């Protein structure tokens, strides 16, 4: 596995955090840069805290700094979630936190050391308008100045344009489905909302069921056009799978994948997790995954995804990464929109003038 071999020492340490105690200064120099680029430095820093005495002195300040950043973001996400709960308290429907915010608020294994950007929310489509109104009253405003952007998000995607809080600058992405309306792989939000569980300390806020957390992470990653955070998302998946793995969980995961039509991205997720992070996925689960790709297609997709995952840092890249990233970018768009919408969209994006820099 070429890509994985080149991603050392990062990959070795992701598989076995205790190895950090044995790295020399040269390896640390590489590791900090690979992990920093991949968005994984804070995670490693949290895992390294227990090993602190065995970490070389020049390295420790970097890890302390990375832990500080993650701790701050975690606290900020919690507070922001409280505010969201308060703003949407009048809505008579579940409000789901997705991905990073869900991991943080529900204290799930991907949370320690994770960095967060926007907060992702899921509400029933019928409530989208009221949710947007309530959030605006509380100070969040839709970004995406142009009419085109508004239409792109509202009509074609599965979310409102990002909502930015006027005072705090925090960003909310409000979705009504896991994948865009125009997506080639149609999926349903109803079962996800129905299966959600409430957060104990935040009335009104919910997180998806375990199987849905995995499926959402998988479909987000494997439908993605940009792979800068690919390895980080894979690490999230690995953490979730290891935590949830049980005799009951695996068949539930597959049947839910079939129900939500997300078998294909799940297959890719399980396959990449096994190969990259040695996630203990039972062989028969992969073999019976719904909508798994035909055998002939697998080496090609693996080669693409491997290059995408390894693109995290320049010294992990292999030949063909540039082309692979381009293909993944196109694929990401292709999966989101049919050609009749995609071509005009890409043209529009290419021709628009960027807003003036200040």
């Amino acid at each position: 596995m070429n890509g994985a071999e080149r991603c050392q020492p990062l990959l070795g340490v992701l598989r076995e955090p205790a190895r950090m105690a044995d790295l020399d200064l040269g390896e640390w120099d590489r590791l900090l840069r690979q992990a920093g680029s991949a968005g994984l430095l804070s995670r490693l820093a949290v895992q390294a805290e227990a090993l602190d005495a065995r970490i070389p002195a020049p390295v420790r300040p970097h890890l302390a700094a990375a832990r500080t950043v993650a701790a701050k973001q975690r606290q900020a996400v919690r507070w922001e979630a409280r505010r969201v709960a308060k703003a949407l308290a009048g809505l008579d429907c579940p409000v789901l936190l997705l991905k990073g915010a869900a991991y943080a608020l529900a204290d799930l294994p991907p949370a320690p050391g994770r960095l967060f950007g926007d907060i992702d929310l899921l509400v029933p489509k019928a409530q989208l308008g009221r949710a947007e109104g309530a959030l605006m009253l509380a100070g969040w405003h839709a970004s995406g100045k142009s009419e085109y952007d508004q239409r792109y998000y509202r009509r074609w995607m599965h979310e409102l344009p990002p909502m930015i809080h006027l005072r705090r600058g925090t960003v909310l992405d409000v979705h009504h489905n896991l994948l865009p309306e125009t997506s080639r792989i149609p999926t349903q939000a109803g079962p996800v909302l129905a299966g959600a569980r409430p957060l104990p300390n935040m009335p009104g806020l919910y997180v998806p069921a375990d199987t849905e957390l995995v499926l959402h992470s998988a479909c987000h990653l494997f439908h993605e056009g940009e792979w800068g955070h690919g390895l980080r998302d894979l690490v999230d998946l690995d953490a979730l799978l290891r935590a949830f793995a049980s005799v009951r969980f695996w068949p539930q995961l597959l049947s839910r994948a079939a129900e939500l039509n997300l078998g294909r991205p799940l297959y890719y997720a399980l396959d990449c997790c096994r190969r990259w992070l040695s996630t203990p996925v039972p062989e028969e689960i992969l073999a019976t995954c719904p909508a798994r790709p035909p055998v002939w297609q697998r080496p090609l997709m693996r080669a693409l995804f491997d290059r995408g995952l390894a693109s995290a840092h320049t010294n992990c890249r292999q030949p063909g990464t540039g082309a692979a990233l381009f293909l993944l970018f196109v694929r990401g768009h292709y999966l989101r929109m049919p050609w009749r919408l995609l071509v005009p969209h890409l043209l529009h994006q290419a021709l628009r003038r960027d807003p003036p820099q200040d």
Partner: protein
Amino acid sequence: MSSSSPRTWRVPPEADPRHRDWEDEDVFFHGGAGDTHRLSAPAALVLLCLMRSPADEATLAAALAEAAACGSDEAGVALVAILAELERLEFAEPLA
């Protein structure tokens, strides 16, 4: 807006406030939101009370009146504005 019974106020959970003062000027840190503010002496007094424990409006007004050596009516009026400001800064919330 008259209320039949005084509301009880508290510092919101996870607000995690901290306080320091120099030369009788008070600075407060809001741990949850990450904001830092300088508050007037009366507002600081009220917040410091709430940081010790939740309290109802009557108790807070009495504390203000004593510190400012003024009447309870005056203190009551000032308290309304102070609590509104503390609520806006998310240092205080009324208990349901």
